């Protein structure tokens, strides 16, 4: 009995959909029956295993400028075709195209429960953005060997569509997704730890079960002026919030931060503040918020002229079980606002 032929939808940009070059990059989402442009290579690679029932095309600029709205439009179009598999790209080194492929694959997986696969060059920004959520097959930088590249996407896509188990990243040819999955090991963690220690003591090779994090070292920039002329801001991840927590900063796994004015305040009155942080004993800082955010001392230094000026906004978030991605984003956003406000240096208090 022959296996059922899979319904496949391809996604391509205006160029690979043969609608035109950069001048057509503003084109909105559209559907063409069957395989057109680069999707023909997908059909060729699929052979008897599947049929490209439609090709969805969207201009690079439209996808980039409309962001989530474009993704929603595309998902609606894909949903109507009821595919078993979505193959996006490959996008090679094309950045806007790669990001759109990753976003669409992630969305059809999450919203439609349809498996999806895409392909890109390692330097395509779409890789770093979406490899955690989507199987992104590693390709070259250009479309010179289109059919060969597409064959690898199709091979992985077929496995996903058929619910077959996916092997490790290297042999399957996709970028490591960097995700963890609970499994049941052969021995208890205690037994494994003792065995690993004995190997380490005997200088035998051992494999740690946790990769060492590649935390980038961030060198402290040099303060280019003297403190007497500098504007200093106070920032904390210790959870200071005004009473009522107006920004709804989460007690753990925070995705939000707050910017709170201290204009006209010589200090922080305990009654006006609260602390939702769930990662440490907050009773002392609730009793006196200066133990976390030293506005009192900073004002004295400002008055004495030891520092030029105290920045009138305090930034605060909750730093516990926060993902690296959200930490990096919040840090970047806070830094941009501080820089725009002419702040020269920051006192960051952590807990």
């Amino acid at each position, binding site marked *: 009995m022959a296996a059922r032929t899979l319904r496949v939808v391809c996604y391509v940009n205006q160029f690979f959909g043969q609608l035109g070059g950069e001048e057509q990059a503003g084109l909105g989402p559209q559907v063409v029956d069957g395989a057109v442009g680069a999707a023909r290579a997908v059909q060729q690679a699929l052979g008897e295993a599947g049929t490209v029932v439609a090709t969805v095309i969207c201009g690079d600029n439209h996808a980039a400028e409309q962001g989530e709205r474009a993704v929603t439009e595309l998902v609606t179009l894909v949903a109507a075709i009821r595919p078993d598999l979505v193959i996006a790209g490959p996008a090679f080194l094309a950045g806007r195209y790669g990001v759109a492929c990753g976003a669409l694959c992630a969305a059809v997986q999450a919203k439609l429960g349809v498996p999806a696969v895409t392909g890109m060059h390692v330097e395509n920004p779409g890789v770093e953005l979406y490899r955690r959520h989507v199987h992104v097959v590693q390709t070259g930088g250009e479309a010179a060997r289109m059919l060969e590249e597409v064959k690898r996407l199709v091979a992985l896509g077929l496995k996903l569509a058929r619910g077959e188990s996916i092997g490790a990243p290297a042999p399957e040819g996709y970028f490591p997704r960097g995700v963890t999955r609970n499994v*049941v090991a052969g021995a208890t963690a205690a037994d494994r730890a003792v065995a690993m220690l004995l190997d380490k003591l005997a200088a035998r090779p051992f494999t740690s079960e946790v990769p060492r994090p590649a935390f980038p070292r961030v060198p402290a920039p040099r303060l280019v002026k003297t403190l007497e002329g500098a504007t200093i801001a106070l920032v904390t991840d210790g959870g200071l919030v005004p009473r009522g927590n107006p920004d709804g900063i989460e007690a753990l796994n925070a995705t939000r931060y707050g910017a709170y004015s201290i204009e006209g305040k010589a200090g922080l009155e305990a009654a006006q503040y609260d602390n939702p942080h769930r990662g440490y*004993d907050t009773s002392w800082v609730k009793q006196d918020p200066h133990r976390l955010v030293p506005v009192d001392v900073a004002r004295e230094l400002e008055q004495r002229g030891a520092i030029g000026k105290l920045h009138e906004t305090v930034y605060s978030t909750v730093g516990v079980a926060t993902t690296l991605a959200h930490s990096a984003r919040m840090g970047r956003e806070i830094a941009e606002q501080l820089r725009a406000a002419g702040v020269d240096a920051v006192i960051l208090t952590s807990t």
Partner: protein
Amino acid sequence: MRLELRWSGVDQLVAAPATRLAGRRLEVDLDALRTLASADPRLDGIRLDLAHPGERCRIGRVFDVVAPRARLDGEDFPGVLGGVARAGHGRTLALAGVAVVATDQQTDNAGTLAVIDMAGPNAALSVFGSTHNLVLSAWPAPGVERPDYLAAVRLAALKAAVHLARAARETEPDRVEVLELPPSPRVPAGLAHLPRVAYVFQIHSHQRPTGVDEGILYGDPVRRMLPTVVHPNEVLDGAVLRGFMGRSCTTWATQHHPVIRALYAQHGRTLWFAGVVVTVAHATEPERVRSAFLTAALVAHTLGADGAVFTKIGGGAPHVDMAQAAARCEALGVKTALVVEDMSTDGSAEGMLLFDFPGVDALVNVGSSQEPLTLPAMERVIGADDLASRLGGESRATYGTLCGAIEQIGATRVMAEVR
């Protein structure tokens, strides 16, 4: 020091007019037990239920699990239930296949409740899915504050654990487990070549201050505890109890301590078990630094260890605290292996670890407590009558909410694999 754990296996747990062990059937006088637990004025209303392996039953609001033990030559759970006296020597009755499960009736957030499944796929992930469980639910008397309520619940569970184990007084044990470790410097000449291994056991995290009645080490709430050397038998024999905020950690696991047992199993063969250092994770930097170097000094210079296994408790701060102490050990030439949780909150490998210290590179993990898990529908819910309709149906939970699936001290086989 020599401890005899006199094990009696139980494969049936039934209510009966008197508590006794008849072969492998444990008969329990539930009225007598209820009276015993009700004597505490902090509690108002006690309910006892029995849950058996294979039953389509879910225990909700699990607070802690205690193994039935009764000491024949000393105080039970000294400093908390019995008087303050040293544990870890003499004979102790121990029941296998039975557990006392205490519930916390003040927890209402159904999404974060710890549960035990007696059947279905989750039963195989936790040891408590295969033990016969005496489930103790108690309600606070009017005006009783939460720390006092939890102290009373724990005390009731300890009383029940002793009551059950005492049923084995008149019977011959199935097997006698002898745990004997000589004073650490006395290594026989023929075994002097073995590497000396210590265990550093973090028994509490002060992310939450302990209550006055939250006895953890011989009844002490370990508020400003400095690293302390104890004999491993003391840990196995009731000297260390779990605090009230014990995520992914049960008193049961401590009573069966998997690291101590693993080191005992290898003692005299591939290693020399040099001893145990108990520590707490602190809330302030000076305390952390002090604790880290004192721990390393005890391990390296007092116990003279060549290697050490570390485990943690609590969340992120204790995880780093443990690693700081391990880094101090590595700096003194002591090799370390650490048992960590996968700390990632978004399932990403980059978030698994919150530290990166030189030499601290041998890491075993006990899985991710955040990973989703399906709770299948059950026919009966114990310990959470008011939430039965929600807790009894199929719902989404996490590994962290399945009591006994992840034990931070390494008792289980769940691990997070990087893909």
